[in-house]
């Protein structure tokens, strides 16, 4: 019999030696060390990472985001009809890629879960060498990925995220948001609500019980109470509650005459369906017509609620029926490629890709601090929202906000919302210090 001699100490030593021996070459060859910043592109291409929900409730929204990104890459690389590049006020991009490099991209599934989204973003950074991560359809995910990008030293261009925290409490230097937030929704909606419903109203809030919901509830409460409205109750509902009827019934005899649904996505579809089913849209309370408000609308989701959205007010970042040159160019370019109009998620993602590429071109580098400096305080126009500014203090875009209403007589299945008012940027601006948080310094990794 062979003698099996091995003692613990030499075993450990051996293992450690193997570990170090292996780690050394890979660490040096992989990222940072030699480079000036994380994933500095060395060849003829630069890699963008598109991190969108492909499974779960927001999969359709994610698919639309991905279509917009592919279109943006095509346009940046000089393909297609150029889309909004033609209307964009900055003319730095020439349709030959960015900084002389062709743009390529990798995709991943966030599953609308922080963990999965971070894992997917890490893959893009660690394996695929992505220099920028963008996309997403929820604030939790956006904040989680933004934190990751800050640590890793790449730029994060947020997709659809509406919570104040993304550029408020949880803002990071490496993160930028084009989409609007709950504060702006509240500021934009309040005057319209006042015109439509008057100042003597009692609101009942149903709020998705997580950070975005609270943020939304807080903003709407703040601005409607300034109008003189009273708040009867603000009830928290579990995420993904399915049928919301048990939360709707208490509204019936509560004395409230406005119902505010601080829900998004499927929850919005379900709570709105239940509210309409319980006759709230046609109800009379205190001698007034009962009203329902959905502060954050999404056209994709409004389609899911069908006829229930008719006449219901809300706000949105962008809508395909806008008639400015930028929007028209984008809708045309998107519609010809895919056969239907883009959603607001697609729009914000397309803009973010373009804005990032443009900033890199202007900065002449992909280094986060350089790109960031080019984005900070950047004023631009021609991307569908009128004159816009990336505010330096919190990396939040300030632009006009759309107040929309469910359309009474839609002409097609995409035509469910009509724009009631474009609230000018000056009305939705707020001081950066109001939402707290610290940007901190840029992290270039490396």
């Amino acid at each position, binding site marked *: 019999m062979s003698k099996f001699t091995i003692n613990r100490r030499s075993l450990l030593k051996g293992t450690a030696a193997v570990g170090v021996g292996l*780690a050394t070459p890979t660490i040096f060859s992989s990222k940072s060390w030699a480079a000036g910043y994380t994933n500095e592109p060395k060849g003829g291409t630069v890699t963008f990472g598109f991190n969108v929900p492909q499974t779960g409730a927001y999969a359709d929204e994610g698919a639309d985001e991905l279509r917009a990104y592919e279109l943006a890459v095509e346009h940046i690389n000089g393909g297609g009809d150029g889309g909004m590049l033609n209307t964009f006020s900055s003319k730095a991009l020439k349709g030959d890629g960015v900084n002389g490099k062709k743009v390529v991209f*990798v995709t991943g599934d966030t599953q609308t879960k922080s963990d999965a989204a*971070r894992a997917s973003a890490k893959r893009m950074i660690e394996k695929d060498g992505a220099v920028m991560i963008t996309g997403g359809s929820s*604030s939790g995910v956006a904040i989680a990925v933004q934190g990751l990008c800050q640590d890793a030293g790449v730029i994060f261009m947020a997709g659809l995220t509406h919570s104040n925290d993304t550029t408020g409490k949880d803002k990071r230097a490496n993160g930028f948001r084009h989409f609007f937030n709950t504060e702006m929704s509240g500021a934009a909606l309040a005057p319209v609500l006042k015109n439509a419903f008057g100042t003597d109203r009692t609101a009942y809030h149903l709020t998705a019980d*997580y*950070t975005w919901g609270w943020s939304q509830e807080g903003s709407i409460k703040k601005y409607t109470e300034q109008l003189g409205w009273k708040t009867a109750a603000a009830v928290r509902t579990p995420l993904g509650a399915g049928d919301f009827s048990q939360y709707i019934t208490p509204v019936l005899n509560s004395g409230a005459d406005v119902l505010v649904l601080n829900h998004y996505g499927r929850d919005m579809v379900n709570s709105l369906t239940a509210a309409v089913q319980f006759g709230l849209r046609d109800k009379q309370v205190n001698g007034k017509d009962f009203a329902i408000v959905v502060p954050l609308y999404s056209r994709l989701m409004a389609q899911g609620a069908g006829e229930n959205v008719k006449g219901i007010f809300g706000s949105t970042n962008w809508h395909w029926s806008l008639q400015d040159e930028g929007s028209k160019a984008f809708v045309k370019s998107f519609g010809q490629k895919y056969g239907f109009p883009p959603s607001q998620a697609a729009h914000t993602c397309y803009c973010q890709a373009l804005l990032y590429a443009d900033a890199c071109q202007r900065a002449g580098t992909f280094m986060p601090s350089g790109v960031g400096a080019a984005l900070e305080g950047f004023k631009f126009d021609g991307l569908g929202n009128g004159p816009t500014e990336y505010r330096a203090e919190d990396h939040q875009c300030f632009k006009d906000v759309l107040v929309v209403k469910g359309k009474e007589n839609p002409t097609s299945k995409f035509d469910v919302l009509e724009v009631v008012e474009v609230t000018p940027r000056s009305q939705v601006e707020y001081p950066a210090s109001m939402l707290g948080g610290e940007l901190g310094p840029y992290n270039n990794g490396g």
Partner: protein
Amino acid sequence: MRFMGMNKQDWILFIGFSVVTLLGPIIFSPIGAGYPDLLQKFAIYGIFALGFNILFGLTGYLSFGHAAFLGVGSYTAVWTFKLLSMNPIPAIIFATIIGGLFSAAIGFISLRRTGIYFSILTLAFAQMSYNLAYSVLTPITNGETGLQLTQDDPRALDVALGRDYGAVLPSSDLFGIDMTGYPGFYFCGVMLIICFFISLRIFRSPFGMMLRAVKSNQNRMNYTGLNTRPYALTAFIISGMYAGLAGGLLAVTDPLAGAERMQWTASGEVVLMTILGGAGTLLGPVIGAGVIKYFENIFSAFNDNILEQAFSFLPETLQHIMVQVSSLFVGEGWHLTLGALFMLIVIFLPGGLMEGMRRIRNLFVSKPPGGTGSGGSADTPVQNPA
């Protein structure tokens, strides 16, 4: 023949496992999995599944609530970072302990029932933890956003030792070695090897035999003078500690703890990992964890561009058709592949991937005549499938 009570075959298994783990960055890079984050996930979910296997594989108790312990481990670790120190050692120690205590409480109640009633009890506890962590317990868990580090965390121990992280957000480091990237993987990998070793010892020990007896016949156990409940509870607590450790390591490599880690789908995932690899086998759960994480991270990343490149050797129309067909199964369709894989495995390989390997091995290696009767077999441990 024996060293530390373990025989040669087990040492070979253990050393082989350790070598493969530590060579992970090289071995897994040809299949596109050699980057730190996925390797960390392999190791961490390997630990989670190893622990779950001690409960489910040995005692047969099917828990649908183990994700709760994973989540508790993560929260504990992040809080340890915030309050005490960025060193991962205290974090994982606390995560393991709290995971153990939490599982002791839930196990004590749930083990009063058996079969599917036990499963539903564990599921109910985990779902309650998840729902509360997402909403009411937000002051502790930071809800949907997940618990994160901030610059002004107290970090009492670090402060006492005079460590200052300056203006940047700290990340966890082991005496100066940053726990992200490959060093983070080696930290998790060493933990996995330690956990595998413990698991191996348990499998071969009288205690492991007792746990198998719990699965086999509780009635006979009682009439043999053995108290089944504490055995099952111990297994439950051990697996809870493994889960707590895994959760702690998730926080070490990436200091964020989200509530969705505790959702029932996450509990289901570890069940699937274990069964997919082969419940009750030593290696199976680790392999199952690897396969599922690989699908989740790599298959979901295939998009039409990649497919077009992959099929670029075909004529254009055929290429188009192939891209169309295969895009159903990758990218946004990766769930479909996973579902189909579960079905195929269970239908054709009820013992999981380990059974598949055994069958393949049996094709090539003819069985030694006379079974275990021949030379040296007196030293083989009680027949346990590896």
